[in-house]
């Protein structure tokens, strides 16, 4: 059984699960489902840049925050519908991503140093937005509660679920096409050995910037969705390191550089967090300890992630 077949089986299973969920779930469960999909979208976004192209990011909150702030400011200041603002935000995030990438790569930052630079950029953006009164400053921005579909607000959480599901599907389709294209091959080459790729004529800087921009687009879409769903953003929420971590963890658990890894990762980690949360209400902190232990265990015993492990296992069997 090859990777393609596993992918197909996974796709069908996930599609069935999502549809069933959309029909059955309600209230709290639906709320968790949405959290899962937000984590999955962030995970897929991180996957493009870090999983496939190997440019490790610790600061995905930058793109998330820019998406959230662009659409929200356009809406509250100029009355532009978040449906449009969402794409403006995506473009803005792509531009910022390119700028960050260009500056970093121009000064030859690589690997860990690049990761640290992304972390610094996230913090810089948080401080800028925290201190700019026009952008709401530290008090944040509240999105008026209107319940109007044209303004990206819905009475039912099911609609939100459907929208974020479409966004996750779009990110996954993008990755599926990317891996089959020249772009994907170039990115994999860059990840494996940047010098060798350059020697073979791959324009390393260009492809790295494309990867960052594409990644930023999906993170920004997640940002807009987040602000519309929760109705309130402030710099310490959307530019938080917690958001950057939320982008990384599903990939690590599910398998970075795999098509469905981040989806499985998000599907595992968010409900698990909730279970730990509910199961240990009397002793605070146990949920966090369990969460930490699990991540550590995955990194040590299953560095390829769930999906990476499945694919490896299948390929090994075939090789026999």
């Amino acid at each position, binding site marked *: *059984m090859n990777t393609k*077949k*596993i992918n197909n*089986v*996974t796709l069908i*299973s*996930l599609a*069935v*699960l999502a549809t069933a*969920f959309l029909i059955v*779930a309600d*209230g*709290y*469960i*639906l*709320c*968790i*489902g949405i*959290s899962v999909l937000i984590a999955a979208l962030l995970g897929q976004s991180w996957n493009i840049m870090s999983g496939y192209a190997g440019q490790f990011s610790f600061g995905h909150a930058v793109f998330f925050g820019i998406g959230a702030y662009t659409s929200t400011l356009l809406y509250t200041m100029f009355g532009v519908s978040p449906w449009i603002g969402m794409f403006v935000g995506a473009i803005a995030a792509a531009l910022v991503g390119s700028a960050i990438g260009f500056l970093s790569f121009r000064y030859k930052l690589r690997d860990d140093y690049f990761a640290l630079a992304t972390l610094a950029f996230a913090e810089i953006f948080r401080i800028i937005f*925290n*201190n700019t009164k026009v952008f709401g*400053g*530290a*008090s*944040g921005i*509240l999105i*008026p*509660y209107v319940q109007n579909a044209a303004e990206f607000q819905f*009475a039912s959480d099911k609609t939100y679920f459907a929208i974020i599901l479409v966004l996750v599907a779009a990110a996954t389709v993008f990755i599926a096409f990317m891996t089959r294209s020249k772009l994907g091959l170039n990115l994999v080459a860059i990840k494996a050995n940047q010098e060798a790729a350059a020697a073979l004529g791959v324009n390393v800087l260009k492809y790295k910037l494309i990867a960052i921009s594409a990644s930023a687009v999906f993170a920004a879409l997640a940002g807009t969705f*987040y602000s519309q769903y*929760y*109705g*309130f953003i*402030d710099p*310490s*929420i959307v530019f*938080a390191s*917690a958001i950057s971590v939320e982008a990384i963890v599903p990939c690590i658990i599910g398998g970075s550089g795999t098509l469905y890894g981040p989806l*499985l990762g998000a*599907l*595992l980690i968010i*409900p*698990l967090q*909730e*279970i730990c*949360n*509910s199961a240990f*209400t009397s002793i*605070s*902190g146990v*949920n*966090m300890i369990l969460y930490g232990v699990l991540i550590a265990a995955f990194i040590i015993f299953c560095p390829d992630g*769930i999906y990476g492990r*499945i694919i490896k*296992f*299948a390929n090994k069997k075939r090789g026999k």
Partner: protein
Amino acid sequence: MKRIVSVLVCLILCFIMMFSFTGCSDDSDSGTIKIGSIHPLTGSMAYEGQALVNSQKIAVDYINENGGINGKMLELKVVDSLGTAGGSATAAQKLINMNVCALTGTYTSGSAQVVSRTAEKAGIPFVVTVAASDTLLKNGYKYSFRIQPSTVTFSSNFIEYLSSVKTDDMKTVAFIYEDSNYGTGIAEYIEEHIDETGLEIVGMISYSASASTLSSEVTKLISLDPDIVVPIGYYSDQSLFAKEIIDRKVEFPCVIGVANGAFSDAKFTATYGEKADGFFDINYRYNPYSEETEYLLSTYREKYGEEIPVCAIYGYESIMVLADALRRAGTTDAEALRQALAETEMGDHVLPQGAIKFDETGENINSAGVMIQIQNGKHVIVYPKEYAEGEIILKKEAKK
């Protein structure tokens, strides 16, 4: 092939199981009236979150020991907000799923914003325990109520109470405040209204609450040489600030905190004792002359082995206000309860203010802070007069 498929099917089944497990809610005993509590029980704000929950439990126990609400017992359902906005929204949904009749929370303003929206959507009352942001009740929501003073109330209290300590030779003021929503909100409000005090602002120094030292900020502050210093921040950062000026033996004529997380805290006086003598703080506090206060303070000490952190009095009061509304409503129906809350007029409480009463936005119209001063290593309320436990002692004469 078959094996892989079965592995995948197993995985999916696991996920479904996990989801259904998370959905399990224990609403087996439907004889009780459930109230939801959303506070940070993990992370940097866990201490305050836990204290709020503890004092809520005291209130619940008190009500149940005295016959409950119209014969029904109260039950507090506590869910960790994880200190994040997203976590609070999920927690709110979870509690709504458990059929709570009202939500309480959340200690931080960002979380409170998100929960108030969730409550509005679900049409269930939300009583804020602690969250000071001025914008919180500016949404036109009908289901949100707040007992504690907002940043604007604290700021205007400052302007009003200042006259009691300010002497004619005090002319300059400098602010040192943390740069989030809360510190900035207060500092900027006072800045806008500074003309009413007749003072001149010589410095606005902001810092991040997570800073590990405030050394350079304090150096800058000393060089500005203000007559009045106004520090605004949370516990840990303001402790750093206090430590810095105590260690350097800097004597400002007057240090007045506004909603200062450290100065009003029992841990702070336990640490610095008489070294912190003279510091003022305008903050929330209990009414020392209410009998109920005595009960709350001693019960907290007995049960949890320490003095009650001041923020926690709002945990207790939130339950009392809800209980009062539930009694009058005679039902847990959300709309009836909301109506009863809106009509609240509660004279007996532990707060240093008149009756608890909400305006149409849900703000407690009589909310007010008091001014405390640390004297002989203890907190003493010095203003307003009706709640005062002692006289103001000015540390030294302002320089000429």
